[in-house]
């Protein structure tokens, strides 16, 4: 949409939205959020961008094909399951690694990796929906 007001407002909004989406993704294990909700927010941000600036600009912003996001997301989710088996447990068994960064603890886990996979798939999928319908 050719609107200065929309475009000018959209830029900060999508920055905030992407931050929020990652925030929702990361804290999803403890508070409302998670990969799906985070992914939806990120995809919504991208969709907003696509409407405001056109789908070519959005594709440029994205740099990767939605299909690749989906593929990597699926791979991450499956890998999260397989890591449990690599560790000799059942498929999809949660594994946790706590890394000390200064006095902060960084908790990495297969459920998180799984959620990241979900996030990527959701972003890719919704972008595919919106871009497919937009570009025609």
């Amino acid at each position: 949409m050719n609107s200065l007001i929309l475009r000018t407002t959209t830029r900060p909004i999508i920055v905030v939205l992407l931050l929020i989406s990652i925030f929702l993704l990361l804290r999803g294990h403890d508070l409302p959020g998670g990969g799906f909700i985070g992914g939806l927010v990120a995809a919504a941000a991208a969709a907003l961008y696509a409407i405001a600036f056109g789908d070519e600009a959005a594709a440029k912003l994205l740099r990767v094909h939605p299909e690749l996001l989906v593929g990597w997301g699926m791979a991450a989710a499956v890998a999260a399951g397989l890591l449990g088996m690599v560790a000799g447990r059942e498929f999809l068994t949660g594994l946790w690694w706590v890394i000390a960064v200064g006095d902060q603890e960084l908790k990495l886990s297969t459920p998180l990796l799984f959620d990241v996979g979900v996030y990527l798939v959701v972003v890719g999928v919704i972008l595919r929906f919106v871009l497919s319908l937009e570009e025609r």
Partner: protein
Amino acid sequence: MNWVEVIAGVMLLAGAAFVLVSAIGVVRFPDVYMRMHAATKAGTLGAGLMLGAASVVFGDLGITVRSFVVFFFLLLTAPVAAHVLGRAAYYANVPRWERTRLDELAGRYDGADASPGEPPRPVAHGDDRPDA
């Protein structure tokens, strides 16, 4: 009586009043632009007051920040939404209230160069009719 509760309660009630006003306005006002006035202003204000009430009640920085973020977000988006929608409504020739006096925007969208968006492949169909 706890003053925090009183402040929060008052904010809530005020917010409730604005919210009600916005809803009534949307129903009562005669055309889409006037309805947008009601929704944009009273709605945002009402929501803001309730978010404020929440931050007062919880008195927690994180929550306050979040409330502010949401409110800021509303302040940022509500007028933009009204703008794009008002523009679109104007563009789509949604009828204005017959008492609208002046229109300095008239004629702006007649020129082909002022196309507001890239339309998709055309399919012949008219405007959406209201229910019979």
